[in-house]
């Protein structure tokens, strides 16, 4: 069967199945189990309304627990077993990981990514949001800065491969260096340590638009009076921006920052496409993929380390969400 046909059938079965499930389960609940008639009508309606939320929630909860909750436990358990999965080895996988220099490089690089990319993207986003705010062509500018959001990490990596290329007839950076200073070309992907920053910039390039859109909405939500008062008091534009505007949107800045941090810890595509983890650019997600299909024990151990790194952000997020609800 061709994949297209299979896809069409899946859409029909999937959507039809969902509609059918929700419709029929409601029908059965209302007419067969707790019919809204007879002598128990009041208690039946009450009971039906107690069950109904769970009917609505069931498919989503099922998918979430199977694909996201169970793996947290499943991965942890698997990481306690050896490569073929038949021998319990305790924390041996973790011990070996922390002893390996590659893992340490990946871990440290990952910390660097998690600090630099959110900082860079938020800073550029805030700058773009503030500068385009009252510009006549601000919307076009925003649209263009936002555009990389639509591009895949692989596509973005290829785009930047053209900028970073060694050949001065392909790579913009080397062409500019040759044109301005007459320097010999360098392969920026092989400069120790700094090559990480060139990779990070690709993700900053992608994420700045996201930060800009949200921060620009937040900037517009600032009450005008506070700015008016500052102007009357003689504040200059920089003081207005840093002392009046930024403090008022601090909450949003933090949300943007954490959202990008979470994303950074998932992205393996850029390193995988640009360097394959060579030249000291390995990060945890790409390091994990190098064990995927080869050593499930090691791969799950790395995945669990990523989880542990994300955990503080997760706790913070939940607390934030709960505070909002009150």
């Amino acid at each position, binding site marked *: 069967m061709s994949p297209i046909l299979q896809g069409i059938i899946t859409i029909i079965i999937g959507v039809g199945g969902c509609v059918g499930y929700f419709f029929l389960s409601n029908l059965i609940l209302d007419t067969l189990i707790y019919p809204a008639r007879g002598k128990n009508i009041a208690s039946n309606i009450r009971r039906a309304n107690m069950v109904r939320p769970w009917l609505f929630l069931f498919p989503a909860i099922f998918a979430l627990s199977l694909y996201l909750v169970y793996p947290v436990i499943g991965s942890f358990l698997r990481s306690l077993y050896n490569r073929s999965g038949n021998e319990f080895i305790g924390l041996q996988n973790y011990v070996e990981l922390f002893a390996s220099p590659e893992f340490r490089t990946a871990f440290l690089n990952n910390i660097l990514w998690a600090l630099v990319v959110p900082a860079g993207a938020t800073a550029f986003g805030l700058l773009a949001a503030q500068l385009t705010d009252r510009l006549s062509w601000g919307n076009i500018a925003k649209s263009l800065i936002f555009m990389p959001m639509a591009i895949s990490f692989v596509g973005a990596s290829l785009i930047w491969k053209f900028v970073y290329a060694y050949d001065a007839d392909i790579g913009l950076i080397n062409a500019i260096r040759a044109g301005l200073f007459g320097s010999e070309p360098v392969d920026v992907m092989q400069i120790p340590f700094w090559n990480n920053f060139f990779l990070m910039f690709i993700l900053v390039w992608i994420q700045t638009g996201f930060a800009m859109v949200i921060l620009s909405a937040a900037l517009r939500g600032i009450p005008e009076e506070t700015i008016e008062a500052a102007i009357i008091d003689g504040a200059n534009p920089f003081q207005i921006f840093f002392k009046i505007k930024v403090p008022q949107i601090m909450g949003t800045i933090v949300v943007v920052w954490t959202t990008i941090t979470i994303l950074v810890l998932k992205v393996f595509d850029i390193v995988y496409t640009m360097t394959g983890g060579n030249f000291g650019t390995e990060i945890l*997600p790409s390091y994990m993929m190098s064990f995927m299909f080869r050593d499930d024990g090691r791969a799950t151990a790395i995945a669990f380390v990523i989880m542990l790194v994300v955990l503080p952000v997760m706790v913070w997020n939940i607390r934030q969400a709960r505070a909002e609800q009150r």
Partner: protein
Amino acid sequence: MDNIAGQKTGLAWATHISVLLLVLIWLIPTVGLLISSFRDRDQISASGWWEAPFAVELTARGRTSAEAVPEGGGFVITGNIFDDEEAASYFGASPGAVVAFGTRGAAPTEFEAGTVADLGDGESLSINPDGTYRWVTPEEPGSRGQRVYFAANSPPKFTLDNYRTVLAADNMDRAFINTLTVTIPATVIPILVAAFAAYALAWMEFPGRGLLIAAVVGLLVVPLQLALVPMLNFHNAIGVGQSFVGIWFAHTAFGMPLAVYLLRNYMIGLPRDIIECAKVDGATDFQVFTRIVLPLSFPALAAFAIFQFLWTWNDLLVAKVFLPSSDEAKVMTVKIADDLLGSRGGDWGILATAAFVSIAVPLVVFFTMQRFLVRGLLAGSVK
């Protein structure tokens, strides 16, 4: 409001220039990719894409003819170098001016065009900018003419050859269809499931609701990497294996936290009066949901659909793990990252074209649906 009298013009200019600079940095790499994808492959390696509108100096080789005319004790061979098939093959229909020429591969541009080069033993050769040459030799040449090397300007040349190669020879067309096959069900199916759940979390009273909402927020953050090994083993155990069905399941579930979160945030903002009126009038929750909440939530549904579409279209990780690694099942991201970068690593025109084929659809979706995307982002992040 921000501008203070007196400082206005200077600051306004600075703003314009900074924004322009920022936009250029953000735009130029993509433009470069697009231009490169339309350039001829010889020209790509001879000059940067920023020089695309200008002529490129290409080094070519050819052979003069061997039809000698006796003249003054020697032989003279004349003709036009571009009449030679080999030489012409470098340039296409309208070759530009010859800049320099030579007779040795090691020094292909030894002599300037228009000058007479002394080749020793009474032999001489000259090639004019228009390609006409005059070769004087004391002995009658054999059946083959003189080997010449020359550099000539090749006018800018834009072709669709790269697209033909990528789509036909590199199976990118197949990968395109595969990507589409993965993306559409993986975008459509989660919406309905998530919408029902979001409605329950937004407008139904039941014990444990707060806890479930917190759980959804927490699951937003769980790294996908954790799910790869256990779920692949699970798929293998239930007989799904690495297949399209498997990746549809995976994408549906992985998109679920964002979908529920986004839709709930939107639905809770709907006016309470409408929903309560409907309930007073005797509508059941099912009716309230299908008749009132679902139609009113259209912007949020659209926003999520765009997100999920972009995410599944652009995904590399899930496709690498949950799809078979055979060529028939490769999606475009995997095709580019695993195949083309290896086998076509130095072929920049092909790489640019493949990248552009893979980002074209998301870009179209992005520019046509930007309104919804922005609204969705705002609903999801700022409250």
